[in-house]
């Protein structure tokens, strides 16, 4: 049973097409990644999923039924623009938001305490929200989204602004919720996060869906033409004929091999040449990263210039290492 089903939804603000003809489904017990650079229509899509805005055309079904506001009690939504009542104390705030989702005060109180302990912020419970650090506020918001134990969890950029330790904590929590059978959608412009977490993805660009499907299938449909080498010494092996392009960083290089029927052999011959000149500490052959796939896809559908701008913008993300911690 699909938890979310979008059928050709479309939303236009004035002259700007926010979302053009978007369709996908999310199944129970899966994690879905909605990807795309800033302004690609991720937030607009999520808002239409839960009736904050209404699509101009197309239809939304939640829990296998046409959208009604009743199902919102089973949905947890964490908006990208975080917001809490600053003057309110944390427990009151969580209980209030829980009650809005239909919980009783006592249940909400008990769950709020349990969650705060689970996310290591029990000491924040009696404090005012404005006295908390930003990371803590974000955790409070995270808890507020989950307090009513929703079956569908929608998170818009859930990890932005979190330090690596907390990002991993939240990611682990989401993974646990998926194991419990919840459906989770999160949007991000950071592709590296998605590769580890998501079962299915949808790639948006300027309101257009340019790629969607299962993570594994998408990845395996691409040949293993990427080579990562960590080395010390001479880098003259980079002139090897099978290399189409490479990016050389301090002591490591990301190589894209020329398309050919014998990719595996090409990689081995490259390794052989590298060993002759340099000391190799790491060698890995792999599929292109999601980010590379995304850039490629965008370049297919649009003039190259735009694609390059895009790749610059996406590589230029701050605290890119948050997830590798």
């Amino acid at each position, binding site marked *: 049973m699909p938890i979310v089903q979008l059928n050709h939804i479309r939303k236009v603000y004035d002259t700007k097409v926010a979302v053009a003809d978007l369709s996908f489904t999310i199944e129970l017990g899966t994690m879905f990644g909605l990807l795309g650079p800033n302004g690609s229509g991720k937030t607009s899509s999520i808002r239409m999923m839960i009736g904050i805005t209404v699509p101009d055309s197309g239809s939304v079904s939640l829990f296998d039924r046409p959208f009604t506001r009743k199902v919102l009690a089973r949905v947890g*939504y964490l908006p990208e623009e975080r917001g809490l009542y600053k*003057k309110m104390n944390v427990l009151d705030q969580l209980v*209030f*938001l829980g009650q809005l989702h239909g919980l009783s005060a006592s249940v909400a109180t008990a769950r709020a305490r349990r969650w705060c302990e689970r996310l290591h912020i029990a000491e924040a419970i009696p404090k005012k929200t404005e006295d908390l650090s930003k990371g803590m506020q974000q955790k409070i918001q995270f808890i507020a989204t989950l307090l009513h134990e929703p079956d569908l969890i929608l998170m818009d950029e859930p990890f932005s602004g979190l330090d690596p330790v907390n990002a991993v904590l939240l990611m682990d929590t989401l993974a646990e919720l998926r194991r419990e059978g919840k459906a989770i959608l999160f949007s991000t412009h950071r592709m590296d996060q998605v590769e580890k977490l998501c079962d299915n993805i949808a790639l948006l660009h300027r309101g257009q869906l340019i790629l969607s499907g299962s993570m594994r299938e998408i990845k395996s449909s691409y040949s293993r033409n990427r080579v990562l080498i960590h080395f010390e010494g001479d880098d003259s092996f980079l002139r090897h004929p099978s290399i189409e392009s490479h990016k050389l960083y301090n002591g490591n290089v990301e190589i894209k091999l020329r398309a050919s029927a014998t990719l595996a052999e090409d990689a081995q011959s490259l390794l052989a040449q590298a060993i002759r000149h340099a000391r190799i500490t790491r060698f890995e052959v792999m599929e292109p990263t999601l980010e590379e796939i995304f850039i490629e896809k965008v370049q297919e559908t649009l003039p190259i210039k735009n694609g390059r701008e895009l790749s610059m913008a996406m590589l230029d993300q701050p605290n890119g290492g948050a997830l590798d911690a």
Partner: protein
Amino acid sequence: MHNVWLIARREYIERIRTRGFLISTIMIPLVMGGLIYGSAFLGSRTGPGTHIAVVSSDTQLVMDLQAALQQPSTHRSQPRSARQPPIAVDAMDVAPQNAQATREILNQELDSGDLDGYLWITPAAASPANVQPARPTFTFTPRSNNQDALRNTLAAALGSVLMREHIEHRGIVASEADTMLQPVTILATRPPHREDSRSAEVSVGILFFLMYFVIVLYGMNVARSIIEEKTSRIFEVMLATIRPQEMMAGKILGVGSVGLTQVGIWLAAALLVSRSSMALVPGGQSLHLDLTAAQIVYFFLYFILGYAFYSSIAAALGAMTNSEQELQQLNMFLFLPLIVCFATLMSILPSPDSSLARALALFPPFTPLLMYLRVCLGHPSVWEIALSIALTSASIYAVVLIASRIYRIGVLMYGKRPNLREILRWLKYS
């Protein structure tokens, strides 16, 4: 409905708990009471220890004047409210040739603050004994320009002194003259079916201002609270579970209940105080809060209607703007009807049952204030009251509907303030 209740309750509790609420609940009546009390106090007296000099060669006249000014309460036909502390009078005789020197000394004393003024009495030119004696000339030189009260007191005292002198001159005994000069007192009784009308008018006036003040204050609070919601961006979390209408209704109810609580506290305190002797202003006039139960019921009824009407307008204004500065530019939409309403007061107060008053009181933006006034001071018929309530309720519903649409779209669009055309387009969105 449950959501509206939750939002209203949160808004209410959070606001009641703030220090601002406590301070304004205590301070506003204190300041207002202080102003009334203070102005009555100041207006009723020429100031403590007033000290004047009287320059005259007629010692009898000066002595009588001295007596009149020093025991003012037993002697003068002034209303109680104008009772004054005794005025110390220095008598000075002066020979005409020394006039200039005397004046200079007196002027110096004025400058140094020893004297508050001096009265120069120039005797009238001598006239034949048969003819009525001409009055002397009185010149009063005050220390500062704003001594009208003192000058009036002097004039009154002089008047009665001269009259007494005149009467005694005609051979009437002093005690008889006293009786003749006794001021007449009219004992006021209430009109048969009305409360003491003057006191009632004052009370209604106080409530009228209170209503105006609280509606403006709490209307602005609703707008501010919505802007706060926008800047803290919490509305998007809220909109995931509740409708914008519910959110707005909850806010209006919550903030409004805070206003009602505050007014309730003020009214209760005012009624308590006016039952006790503390309501006596030093001038002697009592500030009685003279209200019938019906007036209080109507007050809350029309207060709620007025508040609901103006706060939903304020909510719409809040939804259109992104900051308080922007809100201030739109404030006039809130204040203008109220100010117009105030302006019509002059023509409505004297005749609360005129056709103009009846028509204006049915116009929803004016209804709360003007209909309340008519209920208290005029004789509106039952159907007029019912119609005014119905019309206002209907327009509140319309305003809430429009405001919640503006709100729903306004909160999701950040950035520049929308122009009128855009707002009209928003209204068309479902």
